[in-house]
């Protein structure tokens, strides 16, 4: 039991088109790591037979909803789970088509690793570039490019090297630092969980080994202390008469008992008296822990306020420049449009001041003339908010650097923003 209780949690996205065999790859990972139960496998065999398929279609393990099974493709972000003795994995499985950019952005927002799938016969295509751009935009810390269907190119090293070259040239323009390449065959199982004998020229890890060992501990920001107040705990019972605990999730940095802190927006300073975690009192707290903080003096902090360190503060701004991915299928993002913004635990209203350019998600070209930003488009935008936000650039902190846009009329989430 101790093996399974001391493992880290790793989230990764899978992005590839239907034809790239992404679902087959996931099915293969679940199957080979013995994370699929017999009855799930049996159900897939039955379903494959019912659909008249010859081989057991592992992709059926991941396609869930009725309309998907009928159409044979995946529509939304689906979450799959499996673990090995080393780690617990959460897969955010998203479609590869451009019209599902918003799904990819969603799945990518919390991912440690982006798994990009390439068909060895076709090499780097528009889709590959698009996925790499999204991974870069969303600042996914690690990228692993799986060159799939190696069985169809005779497991030739030339094919692998050519694709690696092509991708590296393209990726030089992006903000991705940690990229790995692995030759695989999801269908046959080569280098997914088990090492392949057919790729002796390759001495890197299998995909599973990579996923189990990639260093993710530094994926959080442990430098800049940020604690957005989420909820105030006030028991009001006799025993805890004056107790006022500020509950929330550490968004950055390390906070210690005794630290001198600054409260935003008031600017008052005080000290941390106590930190309570899920298991009782703790000396320090770091992301992504949920804790309750007690301060030395009583200030009337409330949800939306932030506790930071005096000499390391976020940018307190009302004019914000961001990269936005638009989700709204009805209304485009337009100048002078008004929206609600959620930033950490704050809710403010904003107005769109300017659209700087639309980003071509396949080429990285910035179009300053095309200002029609519709669903699945990505643009650089300037907004003005009704109240100050306590922000960091998204590159420094994914939590204090991100926002969502909410439509005031129908309450739906219409966009995601990353602060520049």
């Amino acid at each position, binding site marked *: *039991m101790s093996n*399974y*209780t*001391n*493992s*880290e*949690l790793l989230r990764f996205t899978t992005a590839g088109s239907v034809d790239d065999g992404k679902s087959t790859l996931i099915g293969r990972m679940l199957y080979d790591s013995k994370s699929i*139960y*017999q*009855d799930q496998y049996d*159900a897939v065999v039955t*379903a494959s037979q019912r659909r008249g398929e010859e081989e057991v279609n592992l992709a059926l393990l991941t396609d*869930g*909803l*009725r309309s998907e*099974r009928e159409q044979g493709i995946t529509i*939304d972000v*689906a979450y*799959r*789970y499996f*673990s090995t003795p080393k*780690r*617990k994995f959460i897969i955010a499985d998203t479609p590869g088509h451009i019209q599902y950019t*918003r*799904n990819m*952005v*969603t799945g990518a*927002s*919390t991912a440690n690793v982006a798994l990009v799938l390439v068909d060895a016969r076709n090499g780097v295509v528009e889709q590959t570039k698009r996925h790499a751009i999204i991974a870069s935009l969303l600042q996914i810390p690690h990228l692993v490019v799986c060159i799939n269907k190696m069985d169809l190119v005779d497991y030739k090293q030339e094919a692998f090297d050519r694709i690696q070259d092509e991708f590296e040239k393209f990726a030089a323009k992006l903000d991705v630092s940690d990229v790995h390449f692995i030759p695989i065959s999801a269908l046959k199982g080569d280098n997914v969980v088990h090492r392949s004998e057919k790729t002796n020229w390759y001495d890197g890890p299998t995909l599973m080994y990579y996923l189990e060992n990639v260093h993710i501990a530094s994926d959080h920001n*442990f430098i800049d202390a940020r604690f957005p107040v*989420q*909820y105030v*705990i*006030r*028991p*009001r*019972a006799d*025993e*805890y008469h004056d107790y006022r605990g500020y*509950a*929330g999730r550490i*968004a950055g940095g*390390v906070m210690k008992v005794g630290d001198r802190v600054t409260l935003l927006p008031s600017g008052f300073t005080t000290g941390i008296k106590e930190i*309570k975690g*899920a298991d009782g009192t703790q000396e320090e707290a770091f992301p*992504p*822990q*949920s804790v309750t903080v007690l301060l030395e003096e009583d200030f009337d902090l409330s*949800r939306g306020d932030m506790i930071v360190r005096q000499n390391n503060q976020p940018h307190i701004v009302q004019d914000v420049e961001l990269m936005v991915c638009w989700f709204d299928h009805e209304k485009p993002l337009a100048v002078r449009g008004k929206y*609600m913004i959620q930033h*950490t635990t704050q809710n403010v209203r904003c107005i769109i001041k300017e659209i700087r350019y639309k980003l071509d998600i396949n080429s990285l070209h910035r179009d300053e003339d095309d200002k029609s930003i519709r669903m699945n488009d990505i643009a650089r935008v300037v907004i003005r908010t009704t109240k100050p936000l306590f922000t960091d650039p998204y590159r420094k902190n994914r*939590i204090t650097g*991100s*926002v*969502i846009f*909410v439509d005031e009329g129908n*309450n*739906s*989430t219409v966009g*995601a923003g990353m602060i520049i």
Partner: protein
Amino acid sequence: MDYQINHLKELESESIFIMREVAAQFENPVIMFSGGKDSILMVHLAHKAFFPAKIPFPLLHIDTGHNFDETIRYRDELVERLGATLIVGSVEEAIKSGEATEEKGHNASRNALQTGVLLASLEKGKYDAALGGARRDEEKARAKERFFSHRDEFGQWDPKNQRPELWNIFNGKHRMGEHFRIFPISNWTELDVWQYLAIEKVPLPSLYFAHKRSVFERDGTLLANSEFIDRKDSEIPFEEMVRCRTIGDVTCTGVWKSEAATIEDIITEVSTTRMTERGGRTDDKRSETSMEDRKKQGYF
């Protein structure tokens, strides 16, 4: 200093975050409590989330009248121990008053009737958020579920209308009459739940552990020989050491042969088993899209 936490601690932190977010964003939340391990986990997490204050939500139990006795006993003990408020929605009463119609036949179950009573209870209590212990690994139709799942005035779930969830930001805004289903343990797997409950030493209903019971076999599944099930003459009961892996009604919960008497035994069994948790749930077997269809109608 090593700034790392293990996966159970990370899951715990995430669930606590969700619950606090619910308390902050909604006027009148409620925890849906069935007495099963997932709702027990939820209550345990809620207790931690708001400590030292009491859990700011009542517990709602939809009682089909076909529960195992042990489930009811456990529920009552837990409520008393935590000083929680318990609200019970009764399917039995709904049947008596004509609001619900009892299924007939050998495979009859009150499972589907819960939906109507649940929706009525939610409306009666004017709850704008109902927290449930569903997990995404449980069933195909739950793999795409959100933490914050928007339901319309009819309690219906439209897979095409769910709001994207990015980073740590949850949009719980809604109009009057609409409510949300919240699933704080979405990312937990069955094994995670057991490991955590073991480490935290949470007391659990005896049904989960091996016990001798009178059972009979139907369609490859063992069911409890209970007065609530219409047993065919050909289905002959016998005594067996069994336990429940998931707890639903007596009428649709498969029990299976097991000697697992402690939680460590259960963990070993679950880690090495060949059948999914809900594999013994005859309510899921009715069609490939059983769960999805029921969700669209407003089922949990």
